[in-house]
Structures are given as C-alpha cells and as structure tokens.
C-alpha cells in the first residue's frame, strides 16, 4: 500500500495540469469478481505516465491530450492491493475510451512486491528468483514469539533454524539450502531496514557452550515483513558473504486509516506466557530420576509478561510509527531471566511528489541471565544427569551468576528522489551501535572446581557498524513492449568491534565482589577488529510484454579482510523468467504459470588476518612478557567462490492451489581449507589457510498452498513445505579431515559437511565359555549420518471460522536427522544410566545391585544382554549417535476477534479492534531420539560441532494468553 500512495498522489495531480481543451477522456469502473467496487485502485497508462485512482463507486476517469493520440496501442493497467493487476491494450485515436476491469483476488499474494535484489523489487508473479516473504505482522498478531528465530522457523522453504539451547535470548543458527560452501559460519547476511546488522553469537565468558544472539534484541512485533533470498543466484549483488543468502527485515511504518477519520491508531497487546519443560527425563534412562525424580526437580515453570504499545498514523506528507515493548521472561531453570525493553520510531516524509524520506530508529535494552550447563562441571544438567551434585554442590550451581546487559541502537536514514520520470535515486545510511556487558560471578563462599575463593569476570564488547547505499534506477522502453530498467549502485559496510575482559579470583568476602577486591587477576586483555567491504554493481532488468523477464548484473567487490592488498572480486548474475500463461492459451483452470532460472556467484571472505604470513603477539606469563606466534597466514589467500544455479516454477490453478518449486545446485571452489601443519614443525599457532577446497550442494524446495474455503465467515488455508538438501565435500586439497572439538563431526572429502564420522561397537566378544570379555569395534571410523535432515519442511493450517475465530497451527518435520547423545554417553561413564547399570549387574560385572539377578553365562539372555551392553560402550562415540527424525507441533493458536461484538455495545469507533487469543509453541515433539531435544547443540550456534546434545538445556514448551486492543 505504501508503494501505491505516492503514485496516487502523482496521478491525482496530473489531471489538473492537463486542463487543456484538446483532450479526450479515458474512464471506466473497477470491480471485483462479485461486482463490488474497488476503491482506490490505480488505473494508468504507463507509456504516458498518466492515470487516476478509482472513487467510492470504483469509477475512474482521466483526460489525455489529443496530441498524444497517434493511433498507437498502449497498455491500460490497473493495480490494487490484494488483487491481481490487469492490463488491456487500447488504441489511442483521440476519441474517449471506456474500459471496465473486473479484478481477481490475489489469494496467494503473487502480486505483492518483494525485494529481489539490492536495489530491485518486483512481484512474485514475475520474479526471476525464488524469494520468500514472511508476513511477520500477520503472524505476530496471532502468536507470541520470543525472537526472530521462532518467527521464521518452519516458514521459509529451504531454510532451517536451530535454537541451540533453551536459554532466553540464546543463540541460533540458520542452515540455508545445503549449507553454502565450506567457509564462513553458514549464516546469511541480515539487514534491518537496510542496515546490515551484527549477527554474531556473543559468548564472552562461557557458561558452557552457549552464547547469545544479538538478534534477540529485535522486537518481532515491530516487524512488518521479512524477505529471504536464499543463495548466490538471488543474492549475488550483495557481494561477498552473501553466499548463504540475505534476510531483509522491514519494520513497520506509519499507516493512514482511510475512512475512520483518525489521524492516529494506538494498539496495546498484553501477553502472559509460561515456559515449561518440554521433556521429562525418564527413570529408565537415569538413576538420578529413579531416585525420587531428582534430575527433573531442578526445572520449573517460567513466566512471561509482555507489554507492547504502538502508535501509527500521519497525514499525506508525514507518517509515523512508534512503539515500546517490555518483555520480562523467566526460563525453566531458576537463573534464566530476560528483561527486554525496545523503543522504535519510524517516520516517513513525502515533502514533494518526487521526494520521499524515511527515518527509522530503534533502541533496545536487553538484560539476559543464564546458568551454566553443557560440557562443564558447574552446570545444572551435569550435576543431575551424570553425578548428583557430584561435581559442584547444588547451592554453588544455583548461586552462579551470569548477567548480561546490552544496548543496541539501530538507525537509518534513506531518501528517494525522482529527478526525472522513471528514474529513482536512492541513498541511505544506516548505523548500528551496540554495547554488551557481561558480569559473571562464582560466589566466594562456594567451591567451584579450579576456582579459588570465588571469581568475578567482566566482559565488554562494543560494536559499531555503518552501511551506506547509493543507487540509481532508470526505466525506459527500448521498443514498444520491451522495457529496460538499469540500476547502478554502490554499497559500503564498515564494522568495528572492540572487546575487553578481566577475571579476578580469591575474594575476601562473598558480599564484596567488585573485581578490584579479588586478590588474583587471572586474566585481562582486549581485542579489536576493523573490517570494511565496498562494492559497485550494475544491473539491467528487461521485460517484454509482461511475459519475458531477464536480468544481467555484475558486482565488483573489495574487502579489507583479504590480506594487505585489497583484491577485487567480480560476482556476475543472470536470471530469466517466462510467464507461460501469457505466452500460450492454457486451460482456464491455470491462473498463473511461470518458469524461471537464475545463476549467480558470491563468496565467503577469509578471516581478517588470513593474508598475513606470520603474526606475533605478546604473552604475559611466568617468565614475563614474551613474544609468541599468534597466526600463520597465506599472502595469496582469496575468498571462497560459490556459484549457484536455480531453476523453478510457480503456478496457481483452480483458483485454489498455488505451487512453487525450486531446484538448486551450488558449487563452491577455492574454498579455504585451514591446513594444520604437522605439530613437529612448531608452526601451529594457527592452521594455515589455502584455497584448495571445494564442495557442492543441491536439493529442492517446494511450497504448496491451498485455499479451499474463502468467505466472510469461513476461510481455510493450508500450506505444505517440502525441502530436500544434500551436499558433499568434494575437495580438501589433500588436507586431513577436519574434526570438531569432540572429534565426531567431520569435514572430509566424499562426505556431507558436519557428517558424524567416528568409531562404533560392532558387537560383544565372548570367550570359549560364552563369557563376555569386551567389545569389538569397527576397525576404522564409519559414516554415521548427518545432524541436518535431508528431507524437511512444515505443514500449516489457518482456519477462520464463525467469522471471528481464528485457528492457526504449524508443524515441522525432518527426516534422516541424527543427534549425538553425549549426555547418555557420559551418564554411562558416571554409572548413572539405568539400563547400563542393570546390564552390568546381569552380566556379573558389578556387585552394586544385589537385587538384580545375574544371568547364566553362555545363555541366550546373557548373550543378548552382553550385546546390548557392548553397544552402550562409552569408549566409542558412534554408539551414541541416534536417529532423530522428528515431527514437532511447533505453533498452535486460537483467537477470537471481539471487535464486532464490542461495536454493538460501545457506540462510536473508540475501540478499533479487540482480539483475545491463546497460543502454544513447541507443543509436542515426536522423535525416536532418546535425549531431551533434537535441536540443541552444546557448542552453541557457530562452531563445527553440530547436533551434539551434551548436558544442554532443552528448548521449553511455551503457552501464551494474550489480548490486543486497538483505539
């Protein structure tokens, strides 16, 4: 709608300029299929830049100078939000023309404008690439989401999101298509209102493996829409590091309220929610559960209170949106807390017909507190699932503090100027400035392993980033029917990070733990990094008779991250789309049929010191301050290059079905492989980067939408996403396989990225008498599957019934998914696995459980028990890699719109809407996996370790009750 309003203004003024007497009139009426008038539809002749909007009766009229009528054929077009646009050819003879339109409802929003590139946007019906659009504002109206990961999960074909733990504000990772190339952290570039935002997982002083997502600062209720470009074919013009796609978040802008006679609308939403454990540990798995359910007793329900108020409105030349949110959230363990306050002010001004400006600002203050967990001895889970408070006392675990305070400012200013018809010049500057402060305390009165009389740790991080964009777009007709749009632009990114930290121990009193009162400084240091990227791009889009569409584009990119000399990298792109339904006379049941193909190249930058051969740093150790090698680089390093080809189609048929399908294939070359020198060289300060690797990934993504029931009182729609992804590491340039810290996930030629590759037990060994004497393991490592499903997707139902009830449900599934259950492996080592202990007793390997009867050596039962025992042998990691196919009932919501009812009792229009709802998140999870959660990862969201569940906090089930009232 906001795109149309400037046009409306433009067209409204045109008739007044054309009061010449030598005119003829173009007029008609625009209605829907039922004959109801459509008010405010734009009707125009693009070739003449003339047109008008329809009135309350759906009528339009505008005058055209007779001198422009030369008997030519021109397209008379009509556009209206929510309806498919139409064009008819008319002959301009100088006589009046009457042309009526009957528009079809755009059920599947194929006419909605989406972003298809850095400066290009078009409707999905003619897009040459696969682009996903998430109507965030519609979703947040019926569901309560903690953050953007929950909002996106299951809704974008070809994109998987994994929250790595159940902490509030916890890290999460994107996995787009087949995971891109070998390099980088697989994360897409994220833009908020044109600002490239920091997507780092903030760890600071560890609390186990988990970090926090800086994106947790975003208030999802401020988001209008999210658009996702999924690979180089679409995102090449974003330059290096766009190989994993681009996520563009657009926040809400001020809206006029036509017909209501109000200059402002105010909305308030209150949400009360409960986080509750989604998994209960079983007595059959853990002795510490069998013992009075002690492993489950640490959990509790955590409450959520979320207040959100927004105001929106404006006039013809100035519109505004402002909001405030305060979300207070408790987790399922006592220390988990979050308190986020966000402020947002977006202002748009239209001071002239050819000039618009937008000022978007957002500020977030976010407090997050998390406990220790994962692979460390101070965590709740380690002390209940391995040894019952055996590593650290329960009071010590409970009183550990990890408090994080962060502020983030996001601001952007953009201006669009049309100096001549069909030309737009866009300039924007965006800024992100964030501070993160962590205070971690191990109180002095408790004993924590290696910590001596308490520890206070402070971590500070300051990030400042600027994004500059300047581009110009000019459209013109080359010949009749062949339209060209040329885009030229530049994009610059400047990012600085500074960190500092300090750790003191040995406190005299637990009551005074400022860092200066610690007797021993264990650590202090600082870090800084500064990176700049800059690119210039040129793109030319062509369309012929609204049937054929093609684009050619190229970007020249520069980056400071590549060594001392900034090499230029060139990324090309080409794409093509064909509207078959306009080319041929197809059966009338087919409403839309479009084929498309796109090719593009992007990359992943090396680390910012990869291009420097030897770097030394200073170390402060026992002999004093000395020089040690810090990094070993390679002067000739260049970015990894990722080429992608995608082909696909979109179709709509029977006025009820919509189907999108995309096949993609990505080839990564010159991938940077960090080759570890042999330790005996002594040059092991870091691995050495070489452009010697390669990988490929391929798959498809599909989205089927069905809308069988549409009506005033009932509306039913389904959508089904089915994705397939596969990949293979094709080349490591002779380097040894690269393993994660736990030596299980691997990057190895011939295998998928992150594949589980390790030893496992083949079976038990017996002596001549049939007595168990040990295990027989595989002679070498074996391929044990992947922590990412190859087939995955979601199923959504949206049902409005009895006019005012709305039911929404979303389920996600994944097949051929594996998870490494380290929790179980270590519970066995610590004699806390119920089954293993029973087997041990049955085999006579322990006398600890006299109540369990020993089996007769050599008997069938004995052998079966021995085989089972051998397959639980904790020495071999492969014994704990489990099938983890899943079906998750992710979202469920039911709401009732009381607006109509209220209007009967309260006269006037003081209350614009009033909706009450209930929603649930992570309602049910079905999986063969025996651990707590298929989605966690003990090393957070960025390391090579994936799909490893090691004492990691489960993601909770969430229930929300909310109401929304609008004035």
């Amino acid at each position: 709608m906001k795109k149309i309003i400037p046009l409306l203004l433009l067209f409204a003024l045109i008739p007044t300029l054309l009061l010449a007497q030598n005119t003829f009139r173009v007029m008609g009426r625009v209605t829907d299929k039922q004959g109801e008038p459509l008010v405010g539809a734009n009707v125009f002749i693009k070739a003449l830049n003339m047109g008008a909007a329809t009135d309350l009766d759906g009528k339009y009229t505008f005058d055209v100078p007779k001198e422009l009528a030369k008997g030519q054929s021109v397209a008379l077009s009509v556009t209206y939000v929510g309806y498919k646009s139409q064009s008819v050819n008319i002959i301009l003879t100088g006589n009046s023309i009457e042309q009526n339109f009957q528009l079809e409802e755009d059920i599947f929003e194929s006419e909605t404008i989406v972003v298809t590139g850095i400066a290009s946007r078009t409707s999905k019906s003619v897009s040459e690439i696969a682009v996903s659009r998430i109507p965030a504002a519609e979703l947040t109206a019926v569901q309560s989401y903690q953050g953007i990961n929950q909002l996106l999960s299951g809704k974008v074909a070809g994109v998987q999101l994994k929250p790595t733990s159940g902490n509030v504000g916890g890290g999460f990772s994107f996995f787009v298509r087949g995971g891109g190339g070998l390099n980088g952290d697989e994360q897409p570039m994220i833009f908020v209102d044109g600002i490239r935002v920091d997507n780092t997982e903030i760890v600071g002083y560890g609390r186990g493996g988990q970090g926090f997502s800086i994106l947790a600062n975003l208030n999802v209720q401020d988001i209008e829409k999210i658009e996702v470009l999924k690979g180089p074919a679409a995102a090449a013009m974003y330059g290096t590091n766009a190989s994993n796609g681009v996520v563009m978040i657009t926040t809400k802008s001020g809206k006029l309220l036509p017909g209501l006679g109000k200059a402002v609308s105010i909305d308030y939403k209150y949400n009360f929610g409960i986080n509750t454990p989604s998994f209960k540990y079983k007595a059959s798995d853990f002795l510490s559960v069998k013992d009075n359910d002690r492993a489950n007793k640490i959990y509790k329900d955590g409450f959520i209170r979320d207040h959100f108020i927004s105001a929106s409105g404006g006039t013809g030349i100035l519109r505004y949106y402002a909001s405030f949110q305060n979300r207070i959230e408790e987790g399922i363990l006592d220390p988990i807390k979050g308190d986020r306050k966000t402020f947002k002010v977006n202002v748009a001004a239209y001071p002239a017909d050819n000039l618009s400006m937008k000022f978007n600002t957002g500020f977030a203050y976010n407090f997050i507190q998390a406990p220790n967990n994962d692979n460390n001895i101070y965590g709740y889970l380690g002390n209940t699932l391995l040894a019952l408070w055996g590593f650290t006392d329960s009071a010590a675990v409970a009183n550990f503090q990890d408090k994080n305070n962060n502020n983030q400012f996001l601001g952007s200013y953009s201006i669009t100027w049309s100096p001549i018809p069909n030309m737009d010049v866009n300039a924007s500057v965006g800024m992100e400035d964030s501070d993160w402060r962590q205070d971690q305390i191990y109180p002095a009165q408790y004993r924590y392993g290696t910590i001596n009389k308490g520890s206070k740790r402070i971590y500070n991080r300051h990030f400042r980033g600027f994004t500059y964009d300047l581009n110009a777009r000019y459209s013109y007709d080359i010949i009749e029917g062949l339209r060209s749009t040329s885009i030229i632009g530049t994009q610059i990114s400047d990012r600085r990070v500074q960190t500092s930290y300090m750790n003191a121990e040995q406190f005299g009193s637990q009551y005074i733990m400022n860092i200066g009162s610690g007797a021993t400084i264990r650590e202090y240091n600082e870090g800084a990094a500064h990176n700049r990227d800059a690119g210039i791009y040129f793109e030319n889009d062509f369309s012929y008779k609204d049937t054929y569409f093609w684009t050619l584009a190229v970007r020249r990119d520069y980056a400071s991250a590549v060594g001392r000399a900034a090499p230029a990298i060139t990324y090309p792109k080409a794409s093509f789309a064909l509207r078959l339904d306009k080319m041929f006379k197809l059966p009338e049941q087919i409403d839309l049929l479009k084929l498309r193909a796109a090719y593009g190249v992007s990359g992943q930058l090396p680390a910012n010191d990869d291009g420097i051969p030897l770097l030394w740093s200073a170390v402060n150790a026992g002999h004093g301050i000395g020089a040690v090698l810090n990094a070993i680089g390679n002067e000739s390093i260049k970015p990894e290059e990722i080429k992608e080809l995608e082909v696909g189609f979109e179709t709509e048929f029977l006025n009820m079905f919509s189907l999108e399908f995309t096949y993609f294939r990505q080839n990564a070359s010159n991938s940077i492989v960090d080759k570890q020198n042999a330790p005996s060289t002594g040059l092991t300060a870091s691995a050495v980067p070489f452009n010697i690797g390669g990988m490929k990934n391929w798959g498809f993504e599909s989205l089927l939408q069905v809308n069988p029931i549409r009506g005033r009182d009932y509306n039913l729609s389904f959508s089904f996403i089915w994705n397939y992804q596969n990949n293979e590491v094709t080349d490591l340039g002779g380097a040894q396989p690269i393993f994660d810290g736990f030596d299980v996930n691997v990057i190895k030629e011939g295998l998928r990225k992150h594949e589980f590759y390790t030893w496992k037990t083949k079976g038990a060994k017996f002596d001549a008498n049939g007595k168990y004497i040990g295990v027989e393991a595989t002679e070498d490592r074996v391929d044990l599957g992947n922590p990412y499903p190859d087939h995955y997707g979601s199923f959504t139902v949206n049902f409005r019934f009895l006019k005012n009830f709305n039911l929404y449900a979303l389920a996600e599934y994944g097949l051929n998914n594996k998870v490494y259950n380290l929790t179980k492996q270590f519970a066995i080592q610590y004699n806390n696995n119920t089954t293993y202990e029973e087997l041990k007793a049955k085999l006579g390997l322990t006398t600890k459980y006299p109540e369990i009867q020993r089996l007769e050596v050599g008997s069938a039962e004995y052998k079966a028990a021995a085989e089972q025992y051998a397959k639980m042998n904790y020495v071999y990691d492969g014994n704990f890699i489990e099938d983890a196919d899943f079906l998750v009932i992710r979202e469920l919501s039911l709401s009732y719109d009381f607006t109509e009812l209220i209007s009967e009792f309260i006269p006037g229009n003081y209350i614009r809407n009033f909706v009450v709802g209930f929603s649930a998140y992570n309602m049910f999870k079905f999986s063969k996996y025996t651990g707590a959660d298929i989605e966690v990862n003990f090393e957070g969201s960025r390391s090579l370790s994936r799909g490893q569940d090691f004492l990691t906090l489960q993601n909770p089930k969430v229930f929300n009750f909310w109401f929304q009232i609008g004035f």
Partner: protein
Amino acid sequence: MKKIKILKYVPLLVFLTVFACEDYVTSVDPFIDRVEDAVLDREDQVNFLVIGVQDAAAFCIDDLFIAADGLSDQLFFTRAVRNATYPTYEQIDLGDILLDNNSIDAAYTPLHRFRKYADTLIARIDRITFKDESIKKNGLYNAYLYGGLARYFSATYFGLTQESGGDAINRSAIIPSAKLYDLAVEKWKNALNFAATDAQKRLVNSLIARAYLFKGDYANAATYAKDGMKNGDPVFDAKYNTLNDNNYRVQAGELRSQFVLTQRMVDYVTKDPKEANRIPFKKASLATGATGTYYYQYKYKLDPGTGLITGIPLMTWQENNLMLAELILRGAASGDALALVNEVRASHQIDPLTEITLNDPSKPSIVEERDKELCFQGMRLPDERRFGIWHLPGKWQYLPIPEGERNENPNF
C-alpha cells in the same frame, strides 16, 4: 535534455567509486595486539623474544609432566575423586592411550612450538646487528638452552610405538631417542659458549649429564655431572603466574585433583613423616557416593601469602647430586654416593641414610631417592624404564606421538 544531463554523470560516478573502494577498504585500523614477523628483527626485541621462548616452554612443561607422571606409577586417575572427569587422563593412567588423546596433544604441540621459537631465534639474531653484545649473548644462550631442552623432552617422553622412544623434528622421519639426546647435547654445548656466568655453565653441564645418563652413556654423564650444579645454585624451572597458571596445580593438584597419588607415594610419608617436606600432598574431596581416601600433590600451589605459583623444577643441584651418586654406584664416577644422597636429604631436613644402593628394593636405593626427590617432575617415567621397573607391561611406556603428527608427516 534533463535526462541526458543527469545520465552523463553516471560514468564519472562509476569511475570514482571503483578507485575509492580499494582505498577505502584498506584504510582500516591496524592490529593492536599483533605484529608482523619482520618487525621483530631488532636488537631491542631480542629479550622480548627470549622471554617468549621461556614462556612457551612453560606452556608445555606442566601438561607434559602431568601426562608423564600420570603414565608412571606416581599418580593415578579415579572418578572417586570429585571432578576427575577427563577420559584422556584415564587413558594415560592405564597406558591404553588412543592416538587422538588431546591431553597429549596439549603437551606435544607446545613442545615443538618452543623448539621452533628457540631455533628461529638463532637465525633471527644472525640477521640483527647488535650494539650491545650481552643482549646477543643472552639471546643465543637461551635459544640453545631451550632448543636442547625441547630435544631432550622429545627423546625422553615421546614415542612412535609403545616401547620405542623418539620423535620427529620439522616433519622428519622418526629420530630415535638416543639420537635426540645427542642433538640436545649439541645444542647445550653451544649454549656453554654463550653462558654469561659459572652458574649458567653448571646448569648446562647438569642438563648434558642427564641426557647422557638417560642415553646410557655413563662415562660422559659422569664427566658433565662432576661440573654440574652444586649446593646453593638456583633451581632451573618453568615459571608460572596467575595469568598462565601451572596446569599441574590446576588439573592434578589443589584446584582439580584429576590425578591423585598412588599408595606408594603416600607410604613414603607414612613411613617417614619428614618425607612430607619433599612429597607434599593433601586429602582430595570425594565424588558424591564415593568411598576411600585419596591425596593430591601439593608441591605446586598458589602461595596465599605471596600470590606466587610454584614453578616446575627442570634441574636442581639435588638432582645433580643424585645423578652423580648413581654414576658412582654404576662405576662411572668416583666419590661418596651416600654423602651426596644425604646432602640432598639434609636440604629437606630428612635424616641421613646409612647405606645406599642403586636399585635394591630391600634397601635404600638411588631409584627410591629419585622417586621421592624428583616426584611430580616427570622423572619417574624414564626412571621406571631405565631401572626396569615398568608397571604396565604391554602398555605404552612413552606418550604416543599424536595422530596430528602421524597424519601430516609424510616421513612417517
């Protein structure tokens, strides 16, 4: 016309942008915490580099000695002790060591780092023109001293197979321990040329003596031990501070007792409480539900008074005395072995012995005195091998050269 006017600026804009981009991206803040290699080719950076070698050696030594003593019969691993969790330590204790054991990586990789730093320091000093020769001399003395120490560690602690010692240097084929001892001695003889004091010379002589002793070349060992460290010479040690803690203290000591003393070591003190002066230990906390009494070493600790962390001795005059005594008993040197041993005992206020043997288990012996005097200093592992008292038959007697070296070394 207006259209044309605007469009004519586009090529100019493109031209300027292309050239501006490259300048823009290279104008970034310099590193604050790192410097390129060539910058250090200066006289005034040599002491900074020397300390780097010493610190790098200290990074290795604590982890190396935990592993060596864990594999020997001085320490053992048990989950009965609170917070004893590393499966890699368990493997070391049992001698069933997998090649991907990262506790051994933690010693092996830093060992070769400090060797490399020491070796490249010699080449770097050669590139520098010095105004102050003492800086050059100190640099070369330390470079040779630590270069030799690294080769001695390789010879003593690492092996390609369970029963044969040796290591690679810079991806070489395996160099047997005997040859590595020779290489260490060669370095140390060079160090003697740059020693600034007699005490430095005596230290180097003791190190050479030990290399020969472990190699089994008793005659040469005796020659150097006679000119080795003497009572009053300062200990040569790896130093630690609170920023780089002694990992022996952290993982096998007062902070986390992942290795505890075998009963043998406890019995020494039970039998003669004064032995606690050189075998200090304390009672370890038990894991929940565990029973028994276990003790952790308290040789390496944080002194609450001074805030200093105990260093790890690498050579002492006491060890030189015991070497000489051993060589006398082996017939390679002359002198009073018992007096040498008793001088050592007296330094810990322990009563003198009346007799001493080489390795008679029924009588006071050199092997037992070394066990007590040099406890937790990585000496028991080579002594078990030298004196034929290996306690884990059929298991690793050396720390295995890790998988990373085996995979990346084409000469293996």
